[in-house]
């Protein structure tokens, strides 16, 4: 029996009904009187100088209301959260194919589209650079004046004495791994609707498919030269984001607002899928060079890691993404001597930024593949090798952090996953299977991870919450962190219900609105349960104190003797002494006490010393173990994932069903990352612009998934909860790679492990001239 009444139970999602019945309004569903359509003219080349733009013909097309270029931007020309080097509209140069060059507003979408074709842009094509290693060479074309070496960022971690550590080793192994560009593939392409300045309120309003609503507001205010209080963003129901609706939405919201101000009309912009894939940022491709020194007994003595991340044309989140990579690159192991360097490099490819995992899927793929490779060289069982080097309570991480504030549960999650799949039996079974089958081969593979929770050393980490009890005992809550499908509204509702001792159906969750909610930073880094949930608990807990104080008076009992459950406040010692929640609320209101609270939670202290590459990077960590079982068609390269087992320590599952949902979805994305997905960039030109050629895993490709929830409550989380969103997809690909290596004896070091790579060991790339399945 759970000690909780709402939390830790599989409460039904509060936003499920509207979504499954089609009633939820997404940004593209919104309409206003007098609304006009905005469109973007994008670059013709991945790298070019703009000599001139002639918009006369477009302006004179009937139905066109405005054609705008960079010179019409009233405020800053650029935006960006870390390095503000991304242009709202290209001024004299385009740096990738998705750059916006001009904007059109017109009475209809088709007129806007037609007007784009009438804008005459004279380009001078510049030599481009499309490979991060080539971009670092002397004499390579450069993208940004402030980065003459094309280096967007360099982070390092330095621990111990690398040379001494390598000298102690009996075996030194070196391997290179590569990962690919990945599209978020949210089901809803980007959309916004901007209303011009409200005539009385003196503020403008933008509805849209926003993830990081406060960051987007900051950029819009900056490019429009308005103070923050005059820019109001309202989040429409979000059709998926996975880290993706951030910078691309800064641009879209800023552009729509610019058009709305220019025309005095509501402006709607909706990307087609092709526009979305062309313009929006991707997950970084990495080149990862791993070297490890290992002793005969299987102890890792040193690791040297060098990573090159393709940042594409703009900095976006590259400085933060690569920082998480550098912290976690050695994996969840005790390594006494470490040197890790990561370089984020500008190229004329589509820019790269935040995507679920945020710098971990790449290093996890390399590191967990590498662990299996080392074990194989040592002639050691890969599980035994991991157990031998695993982080345990009190271990010191690569960044010098002593793990003594939470349960280091790596061995526990791994053991639970192995037990659930009956790992040793499966190993024997698949070996036997492979001895007797030539065409089909089976394999089992394991991967583990540790992951820093929330933002860590990236920056300020705090979140707020608003909880307001109405006089009839119903409750309104809202939050500056956003629902994007992950279940935040349900989690927060459960927390407030738990604290107030009422059922979840008494609570209504308001839409997120930057002018009303508390700026809680971005909804990223799997931080909304631990940060925003703690803030909700804070606000609701204080309301409980107020209301129970009044109830204690009425019932003439000590306040700490009271508890609340299912809308009744009663004495633990004498349950006959009770009052309904409504009645207690009514008396509280009558006494003139405040029934609305703002909650706040500030993350515990973290530290990062960039100069020495050391620090207490995150205030707590989560641990995970995945096991993939595969069947490989040895003659066609087809890989079928037969079964997948994922064990995650989440601290406490606020909603176990939601945690399982996160795991299922994460595994599906990991499977796509491992086997299917790649945005094909051909010299800066995106080749696959829709889902006919960009392959995400279908429901038929996703196997039975066994989700194992491990709970080691954390002192910093609400009810002990930590996080689950991102860890669920970071180790699926290496688990599958290890299973394929088990099955075929061949190690694949590049993603995706598609038909050609599995069969031949390398990729084959078509030089396409056109898309599609129909010839006219």
């Amino acid at each position, binding site marked *: 029996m759970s000690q909780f009444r709402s939390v830790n139970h599989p409460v039904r999602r509060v936003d499920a009904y509207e979504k499954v019945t089609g009633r939820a309004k997404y940004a593209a569903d919104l309409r206003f009187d007098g609304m006009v359509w905005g469109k973007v003219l994008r670059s013709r080349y991945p790298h070019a100088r703009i000599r001139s733009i002639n918009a006369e013909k477009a302006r004179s097309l009937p139905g066109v209301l405005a054609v705008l270029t960079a010179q019409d931007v009233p405020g800053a020309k650029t935006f960006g959260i870390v390095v503000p080097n991304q242009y709202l509209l290209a001024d004299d140069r385009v740096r990738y194919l998705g750059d916006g060059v001009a904007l059109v507003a017109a009475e209809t979408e088709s007129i806007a589209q037609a007007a784009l074709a009438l804008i005459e842009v004279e380009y001078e094509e510049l030599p481009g650079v499309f490979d991060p290693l080539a971009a670092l060479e002397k004499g390579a074309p450069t993208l940004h004046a402030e980065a003459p070496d094309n280096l967007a960022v360099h982070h390092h971690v330095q621990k111990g004495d690398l040379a001494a550590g390598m000298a102690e080793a009996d075996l030194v192994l070196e391997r290179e791994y590569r990962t690919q560009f990945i599209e978020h593939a949210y089901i809803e392409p980007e959309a916004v609707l901007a209303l011009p300045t409200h005539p009385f309120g003196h503020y403008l309003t933008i509805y849209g498919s926003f993830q990081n609503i406060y960051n987007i507001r900051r950029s819009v205010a900056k490019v429009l030269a308005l103070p923050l209080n005059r820019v109001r963003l309202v989040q429409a129901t979000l059709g998926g984001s996975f880290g993706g609706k951030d910078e691309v939405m800064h641009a879209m919201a800023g552009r729509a607002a610019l058009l709305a101000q220019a025309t005095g009309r509501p402006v709607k912009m909706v990307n087609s899928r092709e526009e979305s894939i062309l313009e929006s940022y991707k997950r970084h491709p990495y080149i990862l060079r791993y070297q490890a020194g290992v002793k005969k007994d299987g102890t890792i003595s040193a690791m040297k890691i060098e990573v090159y991340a393709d940042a594409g044309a703009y900095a976006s989140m590259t400085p933060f993404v690569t920082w998480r990579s550098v912290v976690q690159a050695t994996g969840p192991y005790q390594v006494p001597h470490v040197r890790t360097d990561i370089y984020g490099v500008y190229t004329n490819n589509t820019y790269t930024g935040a995507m679920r995992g945020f710098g971990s899927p790449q290093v996890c793929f390399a590191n967990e593949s590498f662990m299996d490779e080392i074990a194989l060289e040592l002639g050691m069982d890969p599980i035994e090798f991991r157990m031998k080097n695993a982080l345990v309570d009190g271990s010191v991480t690569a960044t010098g952090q002593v793990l003594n504030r939470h349960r280091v549960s790596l061995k526990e999650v791994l053991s639970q996953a192995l037990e659930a799949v009956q790992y040793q039996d499966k190993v024997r079974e698949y070996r036997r299977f492979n001895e007797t089958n030539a065409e089909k081969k089976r394999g089992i593979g394991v991967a583990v991870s540790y992951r820093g929770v929330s933002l860590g050393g990236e920056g300020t980490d705090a979140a707020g919450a608003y909880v307001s009890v109405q006089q009839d005992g119903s409750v309104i809550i809202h939050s500056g962190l956003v629902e994007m499908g992950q279940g935040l509204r349900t989690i927060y509702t459960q927390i407030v219900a738990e604290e107030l001792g009422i059922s979840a159906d008494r609570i209504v969750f308001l839409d997120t609105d930057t002018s009303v909610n508390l700026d809680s930073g971005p909804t990223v880094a799997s931080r909304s349960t631990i940060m925003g949930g703690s803030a909700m608990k804070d606000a609701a807990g204080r309301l409980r104190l107020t209301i129970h104080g009044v109830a204690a008076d009425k019932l003439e009992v000590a306040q700490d003797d009271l508890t609340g459950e299912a809308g009744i406040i009663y004495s633990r010692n004498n349950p006959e002494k009770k009052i309904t929640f409504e009645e207690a609320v009514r008396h509280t209101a009558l006494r003139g006490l405040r029934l609305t609270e703002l909650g706040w939670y500030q993350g515990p202290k973290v530290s990062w010393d960039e100069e020495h590459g050391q620090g207490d990077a995150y205030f707590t960590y989560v641990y995970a173990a995945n096991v993939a079982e595969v069947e490989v068609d040895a*003659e066609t390269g087809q890989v079928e994932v037969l079964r997948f087992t994922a064990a995650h320590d989440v601290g406490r599952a606020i909603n176990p069903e939601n945690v399982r949902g996160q795991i299922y979805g994460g595994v599906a994305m990991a499977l796509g990352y491992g086997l*299917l997905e790649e945005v094909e960039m051909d010299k800066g030109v995106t080749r696959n612009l829709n889902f006919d050629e960009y392959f995400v*895993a279908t429901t038929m*490709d996703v196997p039975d998934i066994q989700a194992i929830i491990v709970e080691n409550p954390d002192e910093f989380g609400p009810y002990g909860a930590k996080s689950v969103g991102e860890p669920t997809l970071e180790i699926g690909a290496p688990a599958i790679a290890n299973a394929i290596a088990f099955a075929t004896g061949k190690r694949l070091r590049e993603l995706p492990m*598609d038909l050609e790579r599995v069969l031949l060991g390398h990729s084959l790339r*078509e030089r396409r001239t056109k898309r599609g399945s*129909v010839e*006219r």
Partner: protein
Amino acid sequence: MKEFDFVRAGTLSEALEFLAVRHTATRVIAGGTDLMITLRRNDPSWPGPGYILDLTGLDCLRGISREGDRIRIGALTTHTQLAESPLLKDKVPFLSAAAFSVGSPQIRNRGTIGGNIINASPAADTLPPLLALEARCRLVSREGERDVSLTELLTGPYRTSLRPQEILKEVYFQIPGEGTGFSFQKVGRRKALSISRLSVAVLLSLVEGQVGKARVAVGAALANAARLPEVEEFLEGRLLDRDVAQEAGKLAAEKVVEITGRRWSTPYKEPVLLALVRRALLAAGAPQSP
């Protein structure tokens, strides 16, 4: 999306009359699973079709029936109907299997066998089994009907010998004799919504292990789906065992590479085609093979 006038034919003769007059500016639509994508792509170099002539009201073009020793399939028959037809599952199970491998339930519910034939994608899934069945197509225009083999109809990638005034009315084939074995093998990048990377259909009659008739057709290997006559000849009269199947696979791969030359995809397709042909032969040759 391209703009066009949409015309829905009430009767076959109405459709043929329309085409006789306006065929140069008209595209025919059935399920639309290929054409809609082209229309939505908005390629600026293509002015668009002018007219879209919708055939989906013509019930006479729908359905699967047995006529004596033949099966006829109306052009508007959907992949779902092909996949679920008890007659096809009994007599030519590899055609049902191929239809079931198309796209997704939504695509199979809309896409038609006529569209699959006339769109003539090199990777069209129903074409290899239809070729192995030596299917024939009945084409109609205002001027009358003509009858051509599927092989003659397919002239290249996305090209057929259908005249612009004509509509494909139905496809038909002889019901293979008792004891005929079938197999359809397909490799795609995933389990659904996946265009074939390669497919093979085999029809085989065996008498005491010896190959009587062999029909081997490949998809996504050549400019259009096609039979491989040299492989069929090689097989006929031989005792089918693993070695012979392997040899036939090798020959199939050789013939395909001979025709296409070595291309970017050859290092993959050559060994995989060999394996698929071998598997298809052994599956079709196995007793009570599906």
